[in-house]
Structures are given as C-alpha cells and as structure tokens.
C-alpha cells in the first residue's frame, strides 16, 4: 500500500478503526460482523489491532554465527577455532546451515513451516557499543542518528486507537524503549496478579500535569497504571491457564506471563520479553549453550500453548539483539562485539524457511560479518504486512523481507 492510499483511507479511519478493537472487547455478533469487514479491507485497510507482536530481546549481543551455523562453509571451522561447533552436533536445517544443538526445541516449528530465519540482519556503519547499538535497534535509527522514540511507538504514531483500549504494549522486562514514546500506552510489569492488586491501591490524582518534569513523569506513570489496571484486571480474571506448563527459568516465566495475557485476550499489539547474558567475552561455549537452550525450549513451549489455544495465527514472535559477535574468538574462549546476525520469526502466519543471504565468511569487514538485510526493512515488513501500517522507519524504499504470508 502506498502512503498516498493510506492517507485517503485515514480520512474515514475513526469509525473503521473502532471496530476491530471493539471485538477485542466483546464477542457480540455486531462486533464479529465489523471484524470481517475489517479483514476484507486488511490488505490495504485499517490497522490490524488484533495482531500481536512478541518481541524477544537477546541482551548482551547474541553470537549469531553459532546460533544459525553455516556449517558447510569451509571458512567456518578454521575461523571459529575452539568455538566451532562440530558438524555432527549441529541440527541441520538445509545442506548448508543448521541450528546450534541447544536449539533443538525449535525443530518442531521448523518442520511445521512456521519458523523463519532472517539471515544477516544489521545496518550500515555498525556501532559496537551495547548501549548505543540497542538504542539504534530500539528506535529504528540510522547509525549516525539519535532518536528518542521507540520503533513500535513510531509505527503506531497518529493511528487512531480503537475505543476502550487502555494498554497497547506490555513489557515483561526492564528495557521498554521499543514501545516508549508517542501515544503508545506501555506497561512494564513482572507479574500480573501483584500488578492488579497494587494498582488498585493507587488512587488517581486528577490535577493538570505539573511544570516540574520529574513530578510530571511520576504523575504520568500513575495515570497509566490506573488506566491499565482497570482493563487488565477485568480480562485476566478467570482467563484459562496455559495448557502446557512452562519451565521455571526466568525467561520461561516471562513467556508464561505473555501466554496468559494472550489467552486472556488482553487487547495489546505488542509484548516484549528478554533473555539476558549473551555478552560472552569469555567461556562462551558453556554460557551460550545454556542460554540457547532456554531460548529454544521456551519458545517451543510458547508455540505449543498458543496452538492449543487457537491463537498462533494472531501472534508473531521476533528476536533481536544489539549486534552479533566477532567471527574470530578472543583468547578468553569468548568473542568480542561484532555486527550482523540472524534472527528468528515465528508464528502461525509466518512463511517458514531461510530469508536473506548468509553473510560471507570470506568477505569480512574489520573481522565482522557484513549485513545483507537492514533491520529497518524487517520492521517495515512487520509494520506493513502484520499491522497494515505504512511506517518505513526512514527508509526511502524499504525492501520487504518475505517472511509473512
């Protein structure tokens, strides 16, 4: 859809947009009829507020080269030295690439054709600072540009929210930057029950925003809690529990909460979770193995639960990380900061398989992989094909990455 068309549509937006959300609120026949109308217009129609993105941040920079491994490349083993994963241990997906053995949990999704791997994601002039680079990813900025608004907030900027929605995004993590800014209503929480209980105790002040910016911030957050708690409490009361039990590690705990939010049909467009510890400057083999097992097994259980609940078509899972790691190991059995890396997309509407080209191991830049897919093109694809939004994140001609049907 072209920007021009979108603007034409948006003239009549307020009514059209109110409907899918109204469905999320109630399952009345009128709302259902309204939704099918919305679906027929989906190709170029109003925003799909009924679809949910689950963003998974791999904190500390995941080593993509040992996550999705180009084992058939003759350069891989010599370059990786002691960190090379032996070919017989690799979970082979194609004759050329395979998954780290700890990711065997993802095989079911691969075989079910709802796991896409987008290879070589990065951006020009890669920054190798954790903080700066994750900010670049979170705000969809160019390397040289500083933005303060998260990419999800940018995507929904100016898009009218269906009536009755209190929260747009739930962050089950400490970094809420991707969903921060604009008029996106984002809630950060670790546990739903305590959230509801505590929110009730917070009575809302109704004074105008104060001039003191610190006080204004506190008052704004109070208002968000109050508004969010009302909707959430109603939804989660009596919602079904996940059909399959999650493991007990913190990442699984986050995914369990995400699942409960989805099963309760809390009307949100995004949920963010995170798995930390990927900054493997030393002893990488052991650490990476443990983290990838948590990632793969956790996502596999998440998928099984959403399939069981009949929600898998409405959910898209996307991993991201500030950068990949240096191709050659350092002397501490670890790797230093690198550049491009592959990421996973999962969901009932995902076109399974490999997307993008694996960066060449024979053509490195300062010892790092060169990106073949710009992360903003991935975002633009999600915006357009998942939510029907025309946000291109500063790219003049974004190239769609074909991982969504």
């Amino acid at each position, binding site marked *: 859809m072209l920007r021009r068309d979108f603007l034409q549509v948006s003239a009549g937006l307020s009514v059209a947009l109110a409907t899918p959300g109204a469905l999320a609120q109630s399952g009345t026949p009128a709302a259902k009829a309204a939704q099918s109308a919305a679906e027929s217009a989906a190709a170029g129609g109003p925003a799909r507020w009924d679809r949910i993105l689950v963003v998974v941040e791999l904190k500390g920079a995941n080593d993509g080269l040992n996550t999705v491994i180009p084992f058939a490349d003759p350069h891989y083993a010599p370059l990786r030295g002691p960190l090379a994963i032996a070919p017989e241990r690799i979970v082979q997906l194609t004759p050329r690439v395979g998954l780290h053995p700890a990711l065997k949990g993802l095989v079911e999704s691969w075989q079910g054709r709802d796991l896409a791997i987008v290879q070589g994601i990065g951006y020009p002039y890669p920054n190798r600072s954790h903080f700066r680079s994750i900010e670049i990813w979170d705000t969809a900025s160019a390397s040289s540009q500083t933005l303060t608004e998260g990419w999800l907030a940018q995507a929904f900027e100016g898009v009218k929210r269906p009536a009755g929605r209190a929260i747009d995004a739930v962050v089950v993590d400490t970094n809420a930057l991707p969903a921060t800014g604009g008029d996106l209503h984002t809630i950060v929480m*670790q546990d739903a029950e305590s959230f509801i209980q505590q929110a009730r105790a917070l009575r809302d002040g109704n004074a105008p925003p104060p001039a003191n910016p610190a006080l204004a911030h506190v008052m704004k957050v109070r208002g968000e809690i109050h508004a969010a708690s009302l909707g959430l409490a109603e939804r989660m009361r009596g919602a079904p529990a996940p059909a399959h039990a999650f493991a007990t590690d913190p990442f699984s705990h986050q995914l369990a909460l995400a699942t409960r939010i989805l099963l309760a049909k809390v009307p949100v467009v995004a949920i963010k979770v995170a798995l930390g510890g990927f900054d493997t400057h030393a002893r990488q083999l052991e650490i990476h193995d443990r983290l990838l097992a948590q990632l793969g097994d956790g996502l596999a259980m998440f998928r099984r639960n959403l399939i069981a609940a009949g929600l898998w078509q409405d959910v898209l899972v996307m991993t991201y990380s500030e950068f990949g790691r240096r191709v050659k190991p350092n002397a501490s059995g670890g790797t230093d900061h690198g550049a491009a890396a592959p990421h996973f997309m999962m969901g009932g509407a995902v076109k399974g398989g490999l997307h993008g080209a694996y960066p060449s191991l024979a053509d490195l830049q300062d010892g790092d992989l060169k990106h073949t897919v710009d992360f903003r093109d991935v975002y633009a694809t999600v915006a357009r094909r998942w939510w029907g939004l025309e946000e291109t994140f500063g790219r003049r001609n974004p190239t769609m990455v074909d991982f969504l049907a």
Partner: protein
Amino acid sequence: MGLDRGCDRMLERRALLGGAARTLALAGVGVLAPSVLRPAAAAAMGADEARHLLSRTGFGPTPSDIAALQGVDYTAAVERVLGKWRPEPLTPPPGWINLTPPQQREQAERFREQRDEKRRVPPGPDKPPPLANANPIQERARELRNWWIEEMLVTDQPFVERMTLFWHNHFTSSLQKVRFAPAIYRQNLLLRRHALGNFATLLHAVAKDPAMLLYLDGAQSKAGQPNENFARELLELFTLGEGHYTEADIKAAARAFTGWGIDRNTGGFRAYPALHDKGEKTFFGRSGAFGGDDILSMILDKPGVSEWIVGKLWRELVSLTPDPAEVKRLAAIFREARYEMKPLLRAMLLSPAFRDPANRGALIKSPVELVVGTIRLLGLPVPEKTRLVRALQAIGQVPFDPPNVKGWPGGEAWITTNTLLMRQQILRRFVEATTVAPMGGTMPMAPPRPGRRADRREAMGDEVMMAPERTPVEGRSLRSAGNAARLGPALAGLDAATLQQALLPVPPQMPLAAGLPAGEVVATLMLDPGYQLK
C-alpha cells in the same frame, strides 16, 4: 515466583520490628523541640533551601537535620557538606575480606561436594534437610551488600556514601560477574577513599583495580590477543562518551593495557611484562610503545573528560537536563583544579542552577535513597538487611549488582509502571511497620513445606524465611492507629506543616486534610507522589 511475594515477606512489619532489633543511630544532631523549627531570620538560609542542600547531598534529611542548617550562611553550609571526612566506614567489614582466591576455590569445591552428596540421597524420610549454609560465594555477596546498606543507614557523613554510590555507578563492577567478594569490597574502599578526592588519581587506580580487571576482562587480555572490553568502556563510559574516539583508538588502547592482570594467589593487581604488547600503537593520532598509564594520561589531557564527568554529576546533583553553558564553565573549573573533586562540587553546589527553586524536587530518588532515607526518617530498627536488599532489587537497584557496565540509567528511568507500584508497596510496608503500638497474638506460622521445590529453594536462599513468623495485628498502622501511633524520634512531636516541609520537596499532590493525627500525616506524605522526588 513474582517479585511481589518476596517483597511482601521481606517487609513483613514483624521482622522489621522483631527480635534483636536495635534502633538506628540517626545522623545529625538530636531531635530539637518544635520551637527551634520556627522560620529563621530573612537573611539566613530558609528551611526549604536547607532541605534542598541536604536531600541532594545525603539521604532523606530529618526535620532536625534541616533545623540545624537553617539560619546558617549558605556558603558555610556547603563547606560543612564538603568539610572534613573520613575515608574509613563505620561498619566493621565481613570476616572474610582477607580470603585469597585459592581459599575461595577450595571452599567452593567443598560446597559442591557436600551438595552433590546430599543430592545422591533419594527423596524420602531419610533425606537430610537442605544445607544450612548456602553457597559460600552467594553468601559472601549477600553479606557484602548488607555491609554497605548498614553503612548507609548508620553513617554520619551521608555525602561520602552518596559520592561512593555515584562512583560505583560510574566505575561499575558487579558481584555477579566478578564473583570474588573481597575484590569488590576493596574496590568499594578505593571508591570511598577517592569519593571527594581526585578523579585522575581515581581513574589510574580503577584501571588497575582487580575487580575492574575481572569485570571488564582486562585480566584475560594479553599481547596478540587483546580483549577490547575495558578499553571500549573506558572511552565510552568512564571518560569521554561516544563520538570522541575511533574504533582504531579502542584497539590501540586494548593493546596498551595488555599485561595488567591479577595475581592468582593473592587476588591483587600484578603486571605481567611478558604478556604486555610492547609494540608501537597509534592512539589519538600519536604513536609510541604506549602502556596503560600512557593511555590514561592521554585521555585525561582531553577537555572532553571534564565535561563528561560534570554532565554526569549534574544529573546526580542538580537536574535531569544539564545546562550546556554551565557544564562548560564548571568543566573549566574542574580542569583548573586538576581534577580535584572538591572545587568542582563546591562550584556546582553554589551555582545558580543548583539554588534555583525550580530545581527543588526536580530529581527522582534512586531506590537506595528512597529506602535508606525512609528508614532513617522513620527510625525503623532493621535487624536483617537481606530483606532491604530484596526491596531494592524489586525497584531496580541492588548495590554491587548494576544491570550492566553502564550502571543504573537513573533519572526518569527509575520510575516505570512496575517500579512505581513496587515503591508504593514498599513505602506502605514501612509505614505499617512503624506502629509501635503493642502487638499481641504471637502465633507461630506454619514453617515452609520442605517437600516443595520452590519453598526449599527460597528457604536456602534466605535463612530468615525459616524463622517462625508471627501474625501482625491488623489495623494498627500509622494511618489507622490514630493518636496511639508512635513515631520514631526523628518525627515525633512535630506539627503537620513541619512534617510536610521535611518530607516533601514540592507541595503535596494529594492535599492533607486538616487535623489528622501525626502518624496519618506521615503515612499520607510518604505515599504522596512528591515523596518520590528529591
């Protein structure tokens, strides 16, 4: 297990009041009679300004702290804050601070053996109870955190604690990565020794500090295979900030620092000349066979360093948004003083921006400031610091465990929907713990069921959980005890206006009803949004 449950338990008022409780020594002069708190003469510093200075350079000032400063000339008050100070903490250190790395390795090995031995016994009636002593590495981490919290609670020089915390947030190292608590303890002493000292001296010392060498992998960096972690953060976070150096500078610096390591037997700093890259490096456009100290000196020659530190201190002491012109002016003073901290701090505390009434209450209290300050104000006895550390964890700041090398982001990031809820809950617990009204009904609670995995894990992580707890008396909190509520010495006997002036830097957002009992006034003020500010 959600954070909330741990927090609930941690802050059970019975524990705060219970057992071998001892009242905290509160800083400052003793409680003054209300008559002393009358508005001072027009020429002298007012209570609001005294409060401002104290809250930015300490932990939640008490009314008597404020009264003691009121009427003092402002410049003299700043000199008091910056005056003579002791680098040594009051609190005795944990017993293991002289432990060596080989001893720790041996202990850890023993612990693992014992644990594995227990695991070999199948579940059943013969299964021995969980190990009484926890993992020694985690146990020492816990004791060290408690040690610092204790020092912040009892100190008579809160500004030294605030600045030590500032440097800890600047030159971060975390117990989680370093795992050798004696090194983290010694790093804290180092930061404390230079808290109001000289930044250049501190920087050179930090670069050779064993905890830092472990935290940023310097100890593993050697000629031919330099590890860039320290060099990068040195430039990006410790001295200049992004955009003032190139990737090539990082690589050159990393080579220059090779060979700085740790003695395996003592855990102290040791230079290994054989591992040092003696080759020529080009750093900031200059070439030579540089070593680590050369790199640090070349960095310190850049005026950008003073601006970077001044900007960070501004956000700590003045406001969320540094004024660029003022930062330049203060940075020039800092350079003139050859990186001595006191002239810089003096100039900052005397600056028009610091004294501007619009900047009162314009910063958000860190979790440590909120928790430590509130306990000092309420005069709560805290026999066991582990629960306080859990509270701090729930709201995002555990001493010695910053989230990453950048430290805690602070500012507005302290308050999210999650942490604001947790802050309110913690404050509510404190307020309820303050009722010193008699409590009956000491019925012991059922002990945790050891058969359940989660319970067992928790019990092992915190032996306090094993202690029988008592049911609290309902409805006797500060808010509901009426005139029977008893306040600690710092707040007792004061009128509502004086309490409000001490507790809030801005007018209350939830106006106080007239004629409330003092306990309810304190409870209401502490739950007001303005109490989150300093």
